[in-house]
């Protein structure tokens, strides 16, 4: 049987920035999936009682953990903003090239706004940072 073509076949296309948005959506999704592990660890630590939670909290307050949290906040903001685009396409809107490029730009700006707001909420010194 002959070899069947396997998607994605990226190398046949000329680079366009919408491709970067697409691959960034996938990368941010994979990164967020990894965040599921500390999220679950954090929830189970709360369930395990005060001393277990304090151990988890001091681990999560270390600077590598904070760096990861910042990364996950950015990934979340981007994945959220860029994820609305496929939902629009699936509903039948925004397929024209001009629209797709414009929505890409809007998604990046929305992601920046969401990321800045969440980073500020997480790290600005107003009592929320553990």
């Amino acid at each position: 049987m002959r070899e069947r073509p396997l998607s994605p076949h990226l190398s046949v296309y000329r680079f366009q920035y919408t491709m970067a948005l697409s691959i960034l959506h996938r990368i941010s999704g994979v990164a967020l999936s990894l965040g599921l592990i500390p999220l679950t660890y954090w929830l189970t630590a709360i369930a395990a009682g005060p001393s277990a939670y304090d151990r988890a909290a001091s681990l999560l307050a270390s600077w590598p953990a904070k760096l990861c949290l910042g990364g996950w906040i950015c990934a979340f903001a981007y994945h959220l903003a860029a994820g609305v685009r496929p939902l629009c396409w699936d509903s039948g809107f925004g397929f024209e090239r001009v629209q797709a490029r414009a929505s890409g730009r809007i998604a990046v700006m929305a992601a920046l706004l969401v990321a800045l707001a969440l980073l500020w909420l997480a790290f600005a010194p107003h009592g929320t940072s553990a």
Partner: protein
Amino acid sequence: MSLRTPLGRVLGKGSAGHGAGHWWAQRVTSVALVPLALWFAISLAMLPSLDYVTLSTWMSGTWTAVLLILFVVAVAHHSHAGLQVVVEDYLHGTFAKFASLLGLLFAHLVLAAAAVFAVLRVAFGSVA
């Protein structure tokens, strides 16, 4: 009426009958996660502090617990659906592919079960 070609049917290629189900579940969880994830991020950020008492009190609220469970289940489902597509796109060796798919599924089931159990445990107040 089947849309498969006679040749495709003979070769056993084409739809296995559940392609749209995966696609649909990914969309359903996307739509659900827009409000759920924003709620999770914002309500955590709005807590006056992240110490044990504040968090466990927050988690034992009925709506908080219900929304947390919905969030955790939706996020695990969505994460699994997404990573499954990534594996299917880039891993073509049969063994590597199916081992990864199985590993992903089990990992997500474990994470989801642990997270749901943790929320319930705090919500029902059975923490020591």
